[in-house]
């Protein structure tokens, strides 16, 4: 391990937040991130391997996720999976993986009392997977069920996000969701799993994250144990270079849907840690703060018009958005996704709703934020980010992400600082530099796809009527929305049946 260097996360946050008790400053170098919290009766582990779905071999999309699951949800050479569950059970502890395009993190947490029993199970999961056929069969069956049934049928908004993601990054190493495709998963063998593990789970390809009330000896033990992994550098996957959509490119998924779900977006190169990212974070929060009524899109589409349950936007990929209130950790990536998420709207308002969303976005891109909106939003974010990392496990996740993004200090600390430093002018300049209107992928889950295709090609008016009276302001704005131009070239519209999705 290299020389340790003091990270300022803990002490700086403690200064910012009165009464915050964080214990000793954490220490980090390239492959060790420590977050000691002596008063915490638990210990949190995050062992990060620099591997993800971008490393999936062609035709084996979904392999990286299956391998991660074969470590955390399957047997080791010491214990069957059944025995592992039995041993973990009385400890109320466990371990799992979060796995995205570039990062796979095996994380777990135990009470200090149980460390002696817990630790060997966790370390065996990483060092000594048994790779049994029956475990692979079970995990493949789960993945197949997710792709064939759950994702296609049980939540149209999750499906919309998956379609958008695959479209935006098509043809790049990011070009598939982590679970992969049906045919690829079907083809994965035990040999594929073993080879992938051997190649990517090496001692040279990992970062140890440890937090909570641990003793220093545990750090040494972890280093010692993880050094038992074979050496080997993993060749860097070329940076994905998704092609700009060039105009609106629409995928309409034909399905007997009770309502229409939209996800739209484009790849974005700006990453956290840079000033412009924080500027865009302000603009994005105003436009569409996740699951928050302060979102402007939410105000326009849900609050004033009652068309759906919520409308949000993102400047970082945000998996699992339907199930979480605050951002996930360890989704680090070199190319980001700008995304607008319109929750299902009545089918008869689909064209109008799409226009309403795009119109608001276009106005922001062209006109920027007002001073008043800027002031409100930065004040909001300055405090709101305090909610992002409340537990040791979450803070450790952020600390790993700081290492991923090469952030000296802490992203969350910088986030708060930037809210004081940025000006509305800088935010509006950043919008001009990094956001654009007009080149975008749009994923639509709906029924009667053909009629929607026709409406988009013709840029037909989308008259709007409401069952209940609306304010003059809304009625007046609607006159603009119904004719707001969103013209799509016929060759840029693809209609696909839901049964043909995610096949290969």
């Amino acid at each position, binding site marked *: 391990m290299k020389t340790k260097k003091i990270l300022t996360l803990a002490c700086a946050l403690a200064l910012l937040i009165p009464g915050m008790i964080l214990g000793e400053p954490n220490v980090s170098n390239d492959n060790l991130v420590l977050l000691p919290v002596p008063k915490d009766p638990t210990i949190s582990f995050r062992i990060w391997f620099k591997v993800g779905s971008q490393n999936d071999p062609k035709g084996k999309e979904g392999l990286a996720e299956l391998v991660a699951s074969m470590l955390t949800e399957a047997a080791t050479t010491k214990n069957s999976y059944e025995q592992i569950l039995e041993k973990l059970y009385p400890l109320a502890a466990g371990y799992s993986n979060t796995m995205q395009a570039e990062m796979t993190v095996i994380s777990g947490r135990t009470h200090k009392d149980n460390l002696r029993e817990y630790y060997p199970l966790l370390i065996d999961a990483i060092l000594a997977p048994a790779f049994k056929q029956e475990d692979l069969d079970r995990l493949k069956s789960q993945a197949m069920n*997710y792709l064939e049934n759950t994702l*296609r049928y049980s939540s149209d908004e999750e499906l919309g996000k998956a379609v958008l993601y695959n479209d935006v990054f098509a043809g790049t190493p990011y070009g598939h969701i982590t679970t992969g495709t049906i045919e690829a998963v079907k083809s994965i063998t035990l040999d594929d799993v073993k080879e992938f593990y051997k190649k990517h789970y090496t001692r040279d390809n990992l970062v140890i994250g440890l937090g909570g009330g641990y003793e220093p000896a545990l750090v040494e033990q972890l280093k010692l144990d993880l050094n038992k992994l074979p050496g080997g550098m993993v060749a860097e996957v070329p940076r994905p270079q998704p092609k700009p959509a060039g105009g609106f490119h629409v995928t309409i998924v034909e399905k007997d849907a009770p309502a229409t779900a939209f996800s739209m977006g484009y790849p974005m190169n700006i990453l956290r840690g840079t000033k412009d990212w924080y500027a865009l974070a302000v603009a994005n929060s105003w436009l569409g703060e996740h699951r928050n009524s302060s979102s402007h899109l939410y105000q326009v589409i849900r609050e004033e018009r009652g068309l*759906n349950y919520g409308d949000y936007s993102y400047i970082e990929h945000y998996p699992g958005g339907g199930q979480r209130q605050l951002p996930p950790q360890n989704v680090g990536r070199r190319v980001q996704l700008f995304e607008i998420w319109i929750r299902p709207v009545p089918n008869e308002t689909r064209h109008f709703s799409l226009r309403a969303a795009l119109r608001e976005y276009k106005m922001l891109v062209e006109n920027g934020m007002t001073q008043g909106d800027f002031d409100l939003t930065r004040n*909001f974010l300055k*405090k709101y980010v305090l909610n992002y990392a*409340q537990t040791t496990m979450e803070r450790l996740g952020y600390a790993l992400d700081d290492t991923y993004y090469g952030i000296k200090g802490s992203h969350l600390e910088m986030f708060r600082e930037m809210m004081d430093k940025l000006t509305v002018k800088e935010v509006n300049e950043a919008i001009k530099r990094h956001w654009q209107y007009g080149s975008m992928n749009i994923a639509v889950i709906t029924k009667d796809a053909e009629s929607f295709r026709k409406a988009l090609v013709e840029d037909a008016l989308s008259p709007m009527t409401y*069952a209940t*009276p609306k304010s003059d302001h809304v009625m007046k704005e609607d006159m603009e929305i119904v004719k707001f131009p969103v013209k799509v070239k016929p060759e840029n519209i693809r209609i696909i049946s839901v049964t043909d999705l995610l096949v290969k």
Partner: protein
Amino acid sequence: MRQRIPIILTLLFCWGSLVMAGSIFPYTYTIETLPNGLKVIMIPMESPGLVSYYSVVRTGSRDEVEPGKTGFAHFFEHMMFRGTKKYPGPVRDSIVTSIGASGNAYTSDDITAYYYNFAAEDLERVIELEGDRFQNLHYEEGVFQTEAGAVYGEYRKNITSPFAVLNEKMKELAYDVHTYKHTTIGFEADIKAMPQQFEYSKSFFSRFYRPENVVLVIAGDIDVKKTLGMVKRFYSGWQKGYVAPKVAPEPPQKGERTLDVSYPGRTLPILVVAYKWEAFDAKNRLLAATMLLGELAFGENSDLNKKLFLKEQKVQFLSPSFPTNRDQGLFQIYSMVKKVEDVPYVRDEVYRTIEAFKTKPVDAQKLNDLKRRNKYNFLMGLDTPSRVTGSLARVVAVTGGVEAIDDLYTSFDAVTAQDIQNAAQQYFVPERRSVIVLKGAQ
């Protein structure tokens, strides 16, 4: 792939595991009741300058006794964000935004809960805003009608899930007269008609949003005395006036009920075996024994799960759900089965397991492991203010306080192998049973 267990299930389980989690609450708490009946539970704890503030209304879809009003408690939760004359919706929104609070609300059968997590320095602001809206809520009819559209949108986004369909059908099947017969989101026809219920909404507010029916739970970086002073300042003017709904008691079930349900999308078949249980009573040892039995018989470490999920690989998952309810709830066992022809086999395995629990005492080691697990679940689970308030909300709604937690842990400690056998014999009988098999389109 672990995260993919449907959310509806995890929601149902969460209290089960929390309640079973230990025997001593690790924080000192203070309970005060204002003269108007408003109860305040304050839990100071170390936290990085954060406070979590819950307003628990002891009303949920259980209280929707009038025909045509299903889903109203949930709809009303939406209306609570529409502001007052002093702080109209947009003004309120901008204040909440300016303090960077993370907040939301949810409704279930026995509870409507509103929460904010925020920096300790903003506590007074939050107490003022919350005190104001619970007393002086004000909205115009147009706004009311528009919000009904958002609720319909919520229904539409949910209904594509087979679990939403199952939930609706199981309630309808298992209950005859009790309001647990309908879901919290309500029937689609009632949701469609919501825009016409403006006058009814005022009566709903006036009957249920009263201090005797609300409990505040405040945890985190707080000073009890100061907090109580602020609560008194902003809530003391709230007038009593709670009118308890006349919820019809469910008559005893006579005989098993079964139903086949078809789901328009594709899904693997899902089996649900439900048993009518008991209104929650923390001092009832038989009830505590049933909760332990649920884990032992159908939980992650149960023999049946190991058999069906790991060894035979006939199911995608097997999970028990034993939500605690104010009135007679349903104990349910869910399983997603890989092949439709295996559904009868899985169902019979569930029955066989129950019969075994009736006749053979549970292994002492397994019972001890479960008790140890509960202790550590408890110790590890309550580490942030929002987790503390979030965990307590349901027990507060169901029982009116937090004392039931200690009572329940005492009951858990006392549970013997014989109690578990008795619980199996008492509740897991065909007369109390409802069974649904949901199948997807081919």
